[in-house]
């Protein structure tokens, strides 16, 4: 029971983590290897604003999302757009950027990891399993954001334009959609989602300069296993990954938490390179 509850809760959080990465991959066709850095930024901005300065938590979360959004917009303008079309260059430079940001965090906050106080304190029992309010809140926030995003993408003009750009950029252009603006919007949205996820992720684990790596692996796994990202596909694969990790921790050893996720990536790449649900949908 504990495993099922933990698996469900963690998977919801993982879906939120992977969503921003999936969006960029499907709309901009860019594997943003600096994606984990949004989580790093989000976590540390929240830490500074809410834990160090004592600003209310919701405001801290909001500011973290705004900063993530700004970083996303800057990254698109200064890096991705000038390198347009050169995917390898974009991927290498985004990865380097993440390492540089990590060094920046070490410089400002030091090397050691920090404990982020729970956003919502306390523990409760769900069907006999003990669950922290913090993880419960994170999962509920994730689901709320994901459902909101789903309807945004399906039902609004901008959301449909994002789908359109992801499926046929030329078709979008001749329908009056400016792919450049849609890409820019998606980068901002992705940054905000990543930073938000970072606050929840850091409060679930801890805050450390290298905390961008694990979420990046989760995100890559979700995109590769799920195929070109759809919101529903992201949710499904996030649950596969989440349950695998919870099982690995409970049954084998906590040290192996991420290993199975990485093995899954390699396995899917070898057996079914187009992903389990691969098709160009948002």
């Amino acid at each position, binding site marked *: 029971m504990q495993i099922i509850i933990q698996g469900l809760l963690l998977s919801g959080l993982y879906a939120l983590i992977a969503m921003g990465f999936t969006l960029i991959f499907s709309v901009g066709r860019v594997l943003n290897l600096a994606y984990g850095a949004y989580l790093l930024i989000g976590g540390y901005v929240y830490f500074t604003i809410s834990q160090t300065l004592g600003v209310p938590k919701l405001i801290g979360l909001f500011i973290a999302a705004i900063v993530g959004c700004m970083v996303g917009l800057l990254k698109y303008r200064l890096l991705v757009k000038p390198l347009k079309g050169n995917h390898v260059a974009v991927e290498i430079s985004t990865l380097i950027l993440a390492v540089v940001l990590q060094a920046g965090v070490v410089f400002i906050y030091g090397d050691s990891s920090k404990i982020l106080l729970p956003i919502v304190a306390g523990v409760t029992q769900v069907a006999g399993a003990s669950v922290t309010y913090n993880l419960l809140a994170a999962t509920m926030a994730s689901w709320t954001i994901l459902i909101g995003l789903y309807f945004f993408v399906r039902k609004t*003009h901008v959301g*449909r*334009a994002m789908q359109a750009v992801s499926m046929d950029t*030329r*078709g979008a252009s*001749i*329908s*009056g959609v400016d792919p450049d603006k849609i890409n820019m919007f998606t980068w901002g949205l992705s940054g905000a989602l990543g930073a938000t996820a970072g606050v929840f992720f850091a409060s679930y684990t801890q805050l450390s300069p290298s905390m961008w790596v694990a979420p990046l692996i989760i995100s890559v796994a979700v995109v590769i296993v799920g195929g070109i990202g759809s919101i529903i596909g992201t949710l499904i694969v996030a649950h596969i990954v989440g349950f695998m990790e919870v099982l690995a921790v409970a049954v084998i050893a906590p040290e192996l938490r991420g290993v199975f996720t990485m093995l899954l990536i390699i396995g899917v790449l070898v057996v079914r390179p187009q992903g389990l649900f691969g098709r*160009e949908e948002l």
Partner: protein
Amino acid sequence: MSFLEVDKLSAFYGKAQALHNVSINVEPGEIIAIVGANGAGKSTLLDSVMGLTTVTGDIRMEGKSLVGLGSAGIVSSGVGYAPERFNLFPYMSVHDNLMVGAYTARADIEKNLTTVHQLFPRLKERSKQETSTQSGGERQMVSLGRALMTSPRLLLVDEPTIGLAPKVCLEIAEALKKMRNELGATIVITEQNANFAMTLAERLYVLESGVIKAQGTVDELRNDKRLTEAYFGH
């Protein structure tokens, strides 16, 4: 001043030049056809009006230059495009494909959607179907419908009947005539099939290797022996 003036247009894909000094005039409410063989530059001409190529020369609609506005800006200026390969959004429903066309014309959605459904009742019946599962004729209808959703005053249609069954060709031709007669759109189509072009258009331009070789009304060109042999087959 004509409605659409393509003025000494040369177009490039990278370094390759696909059009050489092409000039075309279209009057308001006309249907004209650009006729030519595969690779003559017909699609390039329409792509260029839509801002999808690099050009020298000028393209003006109602006296205002379209060059440099970008595709999105050109769509907002009132140009709709139904390209040869349709460029539809395969995993979106018919309805959502049409709604993307409404991106810059949100005030007209109700009116335009009614028009599209009147022209192509099948699109209303299949509004929830994904376009990836549709036939060529249905996709052509979605493509024309999406272009109409942009509230165009000028409609560009690349090879409207290529690969379609004769019955569907007639349906598309009827729809294009209604768009002109009832909606007042000015229409430019391209065609490999000159006979079909003549049933629809009032005037033709003949394009060969990126150069305009002949132009005139349907009657004028029908009597031109050189052209009859090259393009009309008999």
